[in-house]
């Protein structure tokens, strides 16, 4: 206990500035993202929204070096991400992709330990920092009591929290989460989103891809709306989300209300454009 609460073991998170510059992305010949210039506000929660196939997951993958750009660059504190050693980049940027699968029988603690990989080496397999970081991540995700349970015995929300804890243990300045709340019920969604808020409160830059516009409005400081590989709107949710944007993104007529508790926009779809 004393070790883990000892001074100097708090996550040393320095804000990171992640941006893209004329970024082109695509798979074998087809462009998915076109000439994208984007800056992700440091220390805030950014949500990327848009219709299926708009390139939002692809963009997130590019921010985490999963796909290389076809043109342009991803810049981390002004440096081209592609010039960083993978291990160094992984100490600054953590990614949780969609549908992450783990081998059977692995426990939560085993999974979270994987997050320490970029900080370890062949002859540095387990350091005091590793122990502390895993402990902190488990605490943050409220999984300390469950730590030695196998993943396949957990509920969907617990499992998702375990995966996020893995990324948290990586102790990166940037955390990228691809649809962390899909397939979760309302309560579990909030568990995960609360954890996301805590991460941002520690000074991390958090980027989420979200499906649901109202959830994104409620939980993000900054919204990036994408359509067909381009950013169509960007800014604080309250300024950005309008019936016009919803029509442009999804082809749906809607009414945008204010959430009475938080004041953030709530989107009520009415009908598809062109139908009655």
């Amino acid at each position: 206990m004393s070790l883990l609460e000892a001074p100097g073991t708090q996550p040393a998170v320095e804000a990171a500035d992640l941006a893209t510059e004329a970024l082109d992305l695509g798979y074998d010949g087809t462009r998915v993202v076109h000439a994208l210039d984007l800056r992700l506000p440091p220390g805030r929660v950014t949500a990327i929204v848009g219709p299926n196939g708009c390139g939002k997951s692809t963009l997130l993958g590019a921010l985490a070096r999963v796909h290389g750009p076809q043109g342009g660059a991803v810049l981390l504190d002004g440096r081209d991400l592609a010039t960083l050693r993978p291990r160094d980049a992984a100490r600054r940027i953590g990614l949780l992709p969609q549908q992450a699968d783990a081998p059977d029988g692995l426990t939560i603690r085993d999974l979270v330990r994987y997050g320490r990989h970029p900080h370890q080496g062949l002859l540095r397999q387990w350091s005091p920092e590793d122990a502390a970081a895993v402990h902190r991540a488990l605490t943050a995700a409220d999984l300390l009591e469950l730590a030695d349970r196998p993943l396949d015995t957990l509920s969907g929300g617990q499992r998702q929290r375990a995966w996020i804890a893995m990324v948290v243990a990586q102790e990166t300045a940037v955390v990228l989460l691809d649809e962390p709340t899909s397939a979760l019920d309302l309560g579990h969604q909030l568990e995960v989103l609360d954890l996301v808020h805590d991460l941002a409160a520690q000074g991390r830059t958090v980027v989420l891809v979200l499906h649901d516009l109202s959830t994104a409005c409620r939980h993000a400081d900054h919204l990036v709306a994408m359509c067909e590989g381009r950013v169509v709107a960007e800014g604080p949710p309250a300024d950005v989300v309008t019936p016009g944007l919803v029509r442009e993104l999804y082809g749906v007529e809607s009414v945008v209300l204010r959430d009475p508790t938080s004041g953030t926009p709530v989107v009520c779809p009415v009908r598809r454009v062109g139908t009655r």
Partner: protein
Amino acid sequence: MDDRLALRARSRRETAQGTPAPPRRLARGLAWGTAALAATVLASLLFGAGEVGPGRALAVLAGVGDDDARFAVLQLRVPRTVVAVAVGTALGVAGAVLQTAARNPLAEPGLLGVSAGASFAVVLVIASGAGAAALGPWVAVLGAGAGCLLALGAARLRGTGDDPVRLVLAGAALSALLGAATSIVLLLDQRTADEVRFWTVGSVAGRDLGTLSQVGPVLAAGLAIALLAARPLSALALGDTVAQGLGHRPARARGLAMAAVALLVGGSVAAAGPIAFVGLVVPFLARALVGPDLRRVLAVAVLLGPAVVLAADVASRLLVRPYEMPLGVVTALIGAPVLVAVVRSTRMPSL
């Protein structure tokens, strides 16, 4: 990744619109099949590993020709061709039926261990004292049936169809197991080894029409059941739940399919030994010609099956002249690339 999927779905829709209407496709498929069959039958009669070349063989077919050539063509090549046609028909149809029943484009009697089951049964019975000559095709049929049940059971065929590869691996395992068991029996029992040596490799050489008179009824029965099962089986393409909702009985259809496959494969193994990959190649070609409907596939497979076996047989005579190589080796060389092609096709075609 959803971007890529969307793109793929779009391109698939586009190609679907560009294909000719079904009746025309069927007519075209039948025309191709007939042409291929005619060409291969002719080739099988004309070419051989021995000295009788196409010219002399042609003379025999025209009603003239010398005695040597007459003997080679009429006594050797005609029976061989007839057996190859029977075996090819059986294997092609068995493959098509099995693939539809398993809803799996990779299901193939040779790959699934059905043929290995038939071989093992025959070897076992001979080793326990029966003479190869006295043995009817029923032992092979029973072995094929057992192999069929084992492989399909291992892959939990019923209803799922979601995992085409599992079935193939189960079959590969079963084949390896039965093959090794067969080898051990042969190793331990020299008499059996001598009796079945000609037979375990798979060949239509040296078979006479007597073989066919024994096996013929079995193959005919299998063919009849296959045709009977075609309609209910093609209804299973949408999945068991939907088929049941439409008033079909999936279990019964599968039972019929299994019986047909056991009869067809058992009969052909009894006649020619195990010949792999024919049941994969034929339905693959047939589907490419006329689309996935089982009834149309069967119509074309009846023509293409013999054509493929005959083509492979002719190749087996010519590739290593003056020797002949086992037919099964040639079919494997043809079949393996098809297997790769099936798996590589952007999406596993679901049946």
